[in-house]
């Protein structure tokens, strides 16, 4: 009979870290499944394969890096891996990748993020920065151009917003143009648009997030405060600039905010441990996200804000070190201060941003006209080669007149037949157009020639062929000569 000494309590809940990680993985795979469906149905098999390759390379590289690390440190590989969960990082990293990224870039960033994001700090539970975010930052810093040649997608809603609209649009027609270009706000909610693999469907991530929060896999506070604060902050900015409620909605639905808030900002290892600390942390993420978007004009506010707030976590924890009930006031004051600061800087930031202007409509090029006084008309020489009386009172003159060919390389003059009746032009016929092919020889165009019909010597003026003013002048000179006869 053995009576074990075992300090109280001798009772444990069923929830384990392994189960938390398993359920998180399932949640991520649901999001990935949507992504596969979208690329398979909207783009076809090569895109589906590319999405599979990205996932395989990312997870494979993460796991392999940890295997090598475990071997190098003479640890049991299996038990090391089951307590370290590299596949979670791998899956999150893959879901943050744009579909066009080259697998080579994925592999490099996966190795770097596991090594420098996690292992060098002492492995699971010790790292300061969210490893997947580190990996994504590596891509941003070094591999944005490294894409797969035959995979092409259009711009994401955030890049459109950042590059064309500077995160500030007040003009109603531009707003509708912007929303049309992304398929409307409801499309942003459902996620049928190109972007990072798993970041597009806000609705699906929301559903997965709610399930995970109920199952206590993630803390509900972080996504609620994060997304909520971005909404409130951008609403105030929208009010300030007179933008509609579409603006905050656009902010929360795009740029992977839902993905970041549900799957990355909730990473327990890199966030403060107390409830109050997490709330302050999430608020900080929200403010930085908006500021980075609006002021730095970068599409990826979410990623950098999470990395920056990761670095602030130890500081927040020290602020929140107290008996939680008695320290509630400190936490509330800290939260309020950060909120006011964020609101102030948000309004200042948007104040400094010029609303996107409609591109000025290009002025219609003024048509060039030629008349008797035009330079070339006076310079060119026209010769009447003969005339025919048509018997109905009209006379047709055969006229050769110098044109561009003569002026340019002493070529042949243009030959025309001009019919005149009662000092007015009846018809202009081009017998031989000697000027430059496709440019000067357009004097044969009926539209051009018919301008002359009915003109007399007094009102002789026509619109020149664009790019062929000289040839047009040549014709005018010929007509003029015929009318002078």
């Amino acid at each position, binding site marked *: 009979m*053995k009576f*074990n000494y*075992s*300090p*109280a309590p001798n009772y444990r809940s069923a929830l384990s*870290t392994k189960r938390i990680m398993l359920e998180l993985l399932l949640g991520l795979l649901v999001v990935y499944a949507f992504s596969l469906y979208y690329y398979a149905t909207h783009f076809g098999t090569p895109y589906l394969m590319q999405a599979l390759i990205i996932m395989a390379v990312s997870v494979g590289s993460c796991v392999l890096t940890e295997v090598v690390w475990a071997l190098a440190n003479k640890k049991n590989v299996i038990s090391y891996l089951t307590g370290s969960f590299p596949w979670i990082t791998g899956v999150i990293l893959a879901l943050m990748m744009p579909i066009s990224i080259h697998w080579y870039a994925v592999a490099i960033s996966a190795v770097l993020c596991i090594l420098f994001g996690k292992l060098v700090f002492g492995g699971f539970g010790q790292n300061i920065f969210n490893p997947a975010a580190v990996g994504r930052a590596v891509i941003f810093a070094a591999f944005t151009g490294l894409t797969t040649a035959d995979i092409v997608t259009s711009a994401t809603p955030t890049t459109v917003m950042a590059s064309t609209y500077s995160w500030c649009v007040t003009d109603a027609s531009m707003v509708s143009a912007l929303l049309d270009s992304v398929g409307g706000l409801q499309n942003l909610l459902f996620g049928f648009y190109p972007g990072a693999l798993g970041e597009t469907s806000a609705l699906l991530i929301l559903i997965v997030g709610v399930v995970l929060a109920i199952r206590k896999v993630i803390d509900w506070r972080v996504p609620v405060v994060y997304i909520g604060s971005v909404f409130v902050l951008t609403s105030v900015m929208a009010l300030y600039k007179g933008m509609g409620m579409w603006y905050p909605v656009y902010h929360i639905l795009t740029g992977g905010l839902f993905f970041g808030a549900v799957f990355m900002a909730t990473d327990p290892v890199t966030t403060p*441990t107390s*409830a109050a600390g*997490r709330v302050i942390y999430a608020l900080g993420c929200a403010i930085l996200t908006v500021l980075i978007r609006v002021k730095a004009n970068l599409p990826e506010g979410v990623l950098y804000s999470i990395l920056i707030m990761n670095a602030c976590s130890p500081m927040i924890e020290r602020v929140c070190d107290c008996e939680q009930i008695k320290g509630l006031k400190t936490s509330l004051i800290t939260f309020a201060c950060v909120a006011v600061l964020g609101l102030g800087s948000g309004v200042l930031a948007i104040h400094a941003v010029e609303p996107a202007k409609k591109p000025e409509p290009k002025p219609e090029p003024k048509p060039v006209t030629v008349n008797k006084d035009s330079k070339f008309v006076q310079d060119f020489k026209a010769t009447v080669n003969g005339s025919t009386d048509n018997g109905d009172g009209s006379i047709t003159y055969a006229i050769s007149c110098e044109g561009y060919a003569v002026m340019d390389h002493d070529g042949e003059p243009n030959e025309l037949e001009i019919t005149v009746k009662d000092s007015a032009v009846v018809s202009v016929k081009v017998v031989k157009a000697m000027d430059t092919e496709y440019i000067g020889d357009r004097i044969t165009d009926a539209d051009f020639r018919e301008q002359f019909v009915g003109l007399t010597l007094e009102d002789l003026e026509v619109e020149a062929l664009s790019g062929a003013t000289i040839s047009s002048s040549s014709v005018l000179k010929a007509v003029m000569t015929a009318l002078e006869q």
Partner: protein
Amino acid sequence: MSLFKGPMRTHLNGHKDLTEHGEVVSLNPSKVSIPLFAGADTNPEILVNVGDEVKVGTKIAQFSSRFVIPVFSSVSGKVEAIEDQLHQSLKKVKHVVIASDGKFTKESNPTIDYEKASKEELVDFMMNAGIIGCGGAGFPSYVKYKFAKDVEKLIINAVECEPYITSDYKTVELHFDEMLLGIKAMQKMCEPKEVLIAIKKSHPELIQFVNEKLNGEKDIRCVSVPDVYPMGWERTLVYELTKKRYDKLPAEVGCVVNNATTAYMFGKAMTTGEPIVSRMLTVSGDGVKEPKNVEVPVGTSFHEVVEACGGYTGEDMVVCFGGPMMGGTVTTDAVSVERQNNALTVLKKQAIDEVACLRCGSCSDHCPSGLQPVRINQAAKLKDNERLGKLRVDKCIECGMCTYVCPSKIAVTENVRRAKRAYMMANAKK
């Protein structure tokens, strides 16, 4: 649950059905070893000698240096020895060993009629009858009433929030009239505006039973409280019923809290003169063959109690006096049942698969004291005494919540306990 703090409590599987509706068995041990133990006070005045004849209720010792706590014989028979034995605290403590004659002849102790007695007389009676908190802590009850004033609520705690334990429920069910008498006397002693009997809402039959019995009583009513741990802790219970938090004692917010079994013991002492000599003990857990409630004389050995419940189910056991959350473990079953024990929980030894802390903060969210165990562990690792003070490690009540909720299966409570001891010792040296 709010944005800035966690729920500070959690529901846990109580396994109450193992013993709640079963029969109660009375034990008749041939020998009892009554420990002379009262917390920090280790210097009792022993009133009997080896060879003396004693009866049930004969005073055999008394502590009086800090609080007055008398100790009584639980059987009638002959004092066999006064010797050091292993106590639940795993220290050697003086025990009075009495061989029972099996007759349970009762000592004629004084009784009292609460309706005629004054408040002071009742407080003195409570002190002399050795009424201590029967919920596990063993704090002498008279102290609460001696200085009671401006009391709003007298709370009778029948919550029984630890898993497995049902002894308070059984006491309420079987000895209701004596308990009610005790409650009424307590009511007279502290003059509250109302008396609340708190029972978990997951026990509707018991609540219904109490309500029927209370029919017609003024100012005494039964309240149901959520089925969460540690609902039976004074602070959590007072907050649940008044929404007020206090610094040191519930008296600060006008509350007096006593356990239901304590009220029963007081009621019994007033009518029969018999102090706490035997008590209801829940013997449960997956390590005992026939879990049940037993009525045991104080001083009966754990071994005898477990034998009365069919014995152990295996060879590798964890034996806790009290529930599995707070009950300390003993390394042998040759230790005695004390007056404040409400349960004996016997569990099979479980293998624990511990992984690295993922800093999920669940311990901080659930700590009923509002502490941050994960931060305390980090500070303790760094031996940062100043930070431990800031984190108020001294406020830990060792309820076991942090270890229970930890998904990484780390022995958080034990680490905090050690940090607390180290912190207290470092501060004592200053």
